[in-house]
């Protein structure tokens, strides 16, 4: 479907997949997009695969990304690339922890914010909006750490040549 950006975030239970997809969904919402976010949880706390679909644009109908239509696949755990790769469209962009300098990460739990930082380079949502939403989701020290991780993600990615660029639909 034209005019919709589809982001699939995947990982394992307990990694913060749902927090990451909330951060993305609320940022897109704050920017003024129509947003739908969907997820399967329930057994997720037991370390199993978890994934969350975030879709935004002028008008979104289904909350689920159709197979082979994800523009971006953000994976928090390398083992979760394979089970989710079929969702990525041809020419879509895969973002994994490999892109991030993990030594500079202010805590293991902030990897999701770093990956969203990398993703943010391709989206029209300004960094102030991301931080505004982030300040509501994470409190005090956690917020500062996630901010650092987000910026680290932004930096890590620009340094590398990006083979795919996707035109985002401006409002």
């Amino acid at each position, binding site marked *: *479907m034209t005019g919709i950006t589809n982001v699939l975030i995947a990982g*394992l*239970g307990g990694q913060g997949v749902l927090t990451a997809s*909330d951060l993305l*969904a*609320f940022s897109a*919402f*704050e*920017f*003024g997009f*129509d*947003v*739908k*976010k*969907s*997820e*399967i*949880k*329930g*057994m*997720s*706390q*037991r*370390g*199993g*695969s978890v*994934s969350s679909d975030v879709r935004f644009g002028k008008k979104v*109908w*289904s*909350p*689920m990304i*159709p*197979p082979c239509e994800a523009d971006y696949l953000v994976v928090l755990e390398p*083992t*979760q690339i*394979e*089970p989710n790769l*079929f969702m990525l469209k041809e020419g879509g962009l895969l973002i994994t922890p490999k892109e991030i300098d993990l030594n500079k990460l202010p805590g293991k739990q902030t990897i999701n914010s770093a990956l969203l930082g990398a993703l943010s380079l391709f989206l029209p949502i300004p960094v102030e909006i991301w931080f505004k939403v982030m300040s509501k989701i994470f409190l005090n020290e956690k917020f500062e750490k996630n901010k650092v991780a987000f910026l680290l993600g932004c930096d890590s990615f620009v340094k590398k040549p990006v083979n795919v660029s996707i035109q985002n639909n401006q409002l």
Partner: protein
Amino acid sequence: MVDEEKLLLTGDEAVGLAAKHLGVALGTGYPGTPSTEILEYFSEIGGKAQWSPNEKVALEVGIGVAFAGARALVTMKHVGLNVASDSLFASAYTGVYGGLVIVSADDPGLASSQNEQDNRRYAVSAGVPMFEPSDSQEAYDFTIAAFELSEKWQIPVLLRMTMRVCHSRTIVIPKKDLTSKNPLGYVKDAQTRVLIPAYARFAHRRLRKKLGELKEWSEDCPFNFSIFKDKSLGIITSGISFVHTCEAEPDTSVLKLGFTYPLPIKKIAEFVNQVEHCIVVEEGDPYLYESIRASGINVDGKDESYRFGELNVERVRNIIQKKPESERKIPPGKPPQLCDGCQYRIVYDTLSRLGCIVSGDIGCYTLGVLPPFNAMDTCLCMGASIGVGLGLRHSLSEEKARKVVSVIGDSTFIHSGITGLVEMVYNPPPTGHVVIILDNQTTAMTGLQEHPGTGRKLNHEPTNRVVIEDLVKAIGVKNLHIVEPRLGSDSFEKLLNESLNKEELTVIIARRPCLLASKKLKKYQRCEDVKKEVNREKK
């Protein structure tokens, strides 16, 4: 920038918000994916909500609230309505005075359930009107409409949601001038509310009359509407299937049904007449298809293969184009497992080593069925472990019967294991029986909810505690042991072995707080301590 009036809510949160805006007097339920967050959110934003021991009790409390003239919201997952169905059918006959809305959250695709039952069948079977929202805005709007309808016709209303509606975040614009209603007050009306046969005969006729009126209402209500575009094809749809359809077929005519029992048959016939060809697109059972065909209207349905699992845009496209299921092979993800360090690991290691026949139950501990344990033989529904275990003991050879153990969690035991234990004491198998209650002091599977055995309410504040061991003793079980299974100690194995060899009735409570809950438990304890301290100073 986003309009301040807009919210981005899950379907569950939208129902909770509507309940708050409507001044619902009490929300009751039992935790169950995907319904759990409704009452949690309602409580978080200031509503009064409580977990009941099971769905049947939750519904009965809700019926009482409505008899008293106030509004009640009762929430449960689809299989919970099986437990509550006795009360559901009866309340359809008695009707209600204040509004009563029952949320059934179905799980097509079995993300976290034992079956894919389609609870739209319950609306027909019990004779209660039903709404089916497609997104969070409708979840909010339909909750309001359901209460209005419940009060106007004095009838309980079913709000049937599904996983993707419950757990998806979509935009909601709340209504501005909703007024919460004061309770109407109590009016004694035994002829309506006491279902002795002499009164119930009238009650049945009264119910059918209401449903007849609601059938007319359904024809003109704003929740069932047609969108006419290209008329070579028409699609009749409801719930989540509607949004998939709009994406899959943006140029096709659609009849969107939001109020799906009683169905607006005249409106459906008109729609079908206006289009060249008509197909029904629905998730789960062919409920709409069968009802429409039974009314003599010629529509097409989906292939039987689409009865299974959730629909999505791709599957809806295939249904419409009469294509078979996509043959794409999806690599399996990582299955969930028991947490590292979970006490249940030790229990299942032992059961596996001793070669026990394990009659299991519903909760995290059902994961004992998977490798490396492979230590579960049966698991059906909440509370079934004890009855099924007893049945096995009654009929297996003595040698095998002696190996049978029932395993049940603390919340599940209180939900529907107590009567199983009564059966065990009343009809003991010749070889006795062993029941292990895995007491991790929380409802872990659904996300750490409280239950009567934790001594804390839904909002985690302290209340009376139901003491499981006292209950077991009172029922008359001869041998009761409370243990904490520990790594590197064989005391649990010894105890289990002794109990199996004894051929008597034994309950072993394996108790240790859930690892995921322990941080929270400490926090609640601190809150309680601070409160006590403050009270002491006041004195």
